[in-house]
């Protein structure tokens, strides 16, 4: 599109070039195969979360005569011991998973940003106290804490669960954000802003936060992963309401109805695969962010590919010697020069 417009009308070139340069960063991120795969997968699950209950072939709780049937044309992913359609349960359950993940991710990331950035920026005793607080929450095992809180709450709806998870899940992000803020605080542009007499909050919002975007994003994605795994585990143990469909609830019913002993693999494998796919999507996005932030990691991957092709092995302390460096001659295998000249 852009190429066509540019070649057809030369006057378009200049204005087109400017936004291209401005959005180059985003393009780099999107050109990353890992990030792209992750985003596509995530988008699929998001769409399922929205339309899941409309496209599901059956009511997930509806009983039927076909009990414990393996995958078939009527029931693509088989049925439970009560004849409920597992595909419908997964489709309908996607929404619960995504809502809790997203809500917990947002709350926990907000907490992490507030506490981490404040700690890193104010320094001194306040920093010590806030860091100690996040370390305490890091060290205390999260799941038992969530269990005793969620187990005693009178209601255990999705948002309540999300809230409880975020209370325990903010500490990791806060720790990373604090460290990054600490190093930003000493950078020249922040010092300059201070010397100019800009207000504390102006500096934080306009100088610090924009530079933390990638880390906040990665911490958000990490927290969403943590929240989803926690929520599913809670549902699987039966701490949270077992009447709300999500992938954990499916596993709960599978476990409590001896699906394993009866060999009903279709009851728990699809739900687990969905968790794995969603988790991998989130990890891939995070890898993408990491490589975007830290080019050294990115280069390693690309280097590895080109090197294998050229037969070079990069080693620490033994710089490779490739005498046929001219890549102009594709007919010759890489690394031939060594033999030629020997």
């Amino acid at each position, binding site marked *: 599109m852009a190429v066509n417009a540019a070649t057809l009308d030369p006057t378009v070139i200049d204005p087109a070039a400017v936004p291209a340069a401005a959005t180059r960063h985003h393009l780099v991120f999107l050109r990353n195969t890992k990030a792209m795969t992750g985003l596509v997968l995530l988008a699929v699950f998001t769409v399922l979360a929205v339309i899941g209950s409309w496209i599901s072939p059956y009511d997930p709780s509806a009983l039927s005569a076909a009990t414990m049937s393996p995958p078939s044309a009527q029931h693509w992913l088989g049925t439970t011991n009560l004849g409920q359609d597992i595909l419908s349960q997964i489709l309908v359950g996607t929404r619960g998973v995504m809502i809790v993940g997203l809500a917990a991710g947002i709350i926990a990331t907000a907490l992490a940003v507030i506490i981490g950035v404040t700690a890193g920026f104010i320094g001194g005793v306040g920093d010590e106290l806030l860091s100690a607080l996040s370390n305490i929450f890091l060290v205390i095992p999260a799941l038992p804490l969530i269990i005793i809180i969620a187990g005693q709450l009178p209601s255990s709806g999705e948002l309540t669960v999300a809230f409880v998870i975020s209370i325990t899940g903010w500490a990791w992000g806060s720790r990373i954000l604090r460290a990054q803020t600490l190093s930003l605080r000493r950078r020249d542009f922040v010092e300059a802003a201070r010397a100019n007499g800009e207000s504390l909050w102006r500096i934080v919002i306009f100088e610090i936060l924009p530079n933390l975007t990638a880390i906040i994003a990665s911490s958000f994605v990490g927290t969403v992963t943590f929240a989803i795994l926690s929520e599913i585990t809670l549902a699987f143990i039966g701490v949270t309401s077992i009447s709300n469909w999500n992938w954990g609830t499916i596993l709960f019913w599978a476990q409590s109805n001896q699906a394993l002993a009866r060999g009903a693999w279709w009851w728990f494998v699809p739900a687990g695969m969905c968790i794995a796919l969603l988790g991998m999507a989130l990890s891939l996005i995070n890898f993408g962010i990491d490589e975007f932030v830290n080019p050294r990691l990115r*280069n390693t991957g*690309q*280097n590895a590919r*080109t*090197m294998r092709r*050229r037969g*070079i092995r*990069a*080693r*620490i*302390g*033994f*710089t*490779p*010697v*490739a*005498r046929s*460096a001219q*890549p102009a001659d594709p007919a010759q295998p890489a690394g031939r*020069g060594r033999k030629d000249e*020997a």
Partner: protein
Amino acid sequence: MTATTTTPRSPGAPASPRPPVLEVRNLSVDYGYGEAPTHVLRNTSLTLHRGEVLGLAGESGCGKSTLAYAATRLLPPPGLITGGEVIFTDRFGTSVDLLRLDDAQLRASRWRDTAIVFQGAMNSLNPVFRIGRQLTDAIRAHRPDESRQTSAERAAETLEMVGIAADRLRSYPHQLSGGMRQRVMIAMALALEPQVLIMDEPTTALDVVMQRQIIEQISELRERLGFSVIFITHDVSLLIEIADRIAIMYAGEIVEDAPAEDVYRRPRHPYAHGLLRSFPPLHGPRRELGGIPGSPPDLLHLAPGCPFAPRCPHAFDLCRTDRPTLGPTAFAASEPSRLVACHLHAGGVVPRELTAGVPS
């Protein structure tokens, strides 16, 4: 050890009769393994003679450290040696190409033949091992038959040689000051009595007093042990004091190679001239300091021709199309030991400021 001491030379004396100990021939190095690597060194050649202190100078990023690391095959990824030879000749006249040794041979040669003192001693020592262990493991790797006792004595001896008490062998790196750590590195480098010592900005991170002490110590040890030195620095004034010969690098190429005194008093390359004018003179009348206008070229997008041409006040048409090679100066008859890579000397007209010391 054939302790050859420096003999005073008059400017423009014939080439040193001393045999070479380390010869870098047409070394080419790329950064990046992909389709469009940066050519950081292009056919660079350099010779270190036995018993000589060779200074390697240039702006940061000119490739002087790369040259040293590549010649020892210590260049970290994504460095790639794409051609050339590095010939090491031992005391008995046997030569080997370091780039063709296999891993075991190269390991055996390292530190025994060529030792290196790296830039920034802060990170050169393993923070979790005691100094003594780091000294002896180098000794024991090369002399496996030696007893632990002997290695430990040798370690203590070398440490005392650089003026550090032997009880410091029990210290961890973080317990030493910056200057002390650099001395430990020098002691470590000399522990196996190597024939070549490469020093990469060994004093840059230190204060001036410490810098001076270490430089004096190196000169003294060299007199005593007779090793050859490649001394890399961006500080040309420092080189003039300690080097016998100076090579000036620009954009991955050596542009001038001549006895130290000659480079200092009678530069032949416009870049060497500019570089020297940016340092205050050590002796003699004050003169106006001048920098070099412009900035070093981007090695990824190097234009054809002389890489210095865009900044050179004397550049003419040929400079923008043809790359000059290292060759004799326009006055080769009176100064055969000097080399310069400049079209002005190969058929051009040498401007006045580059003709100092030439009988007219």
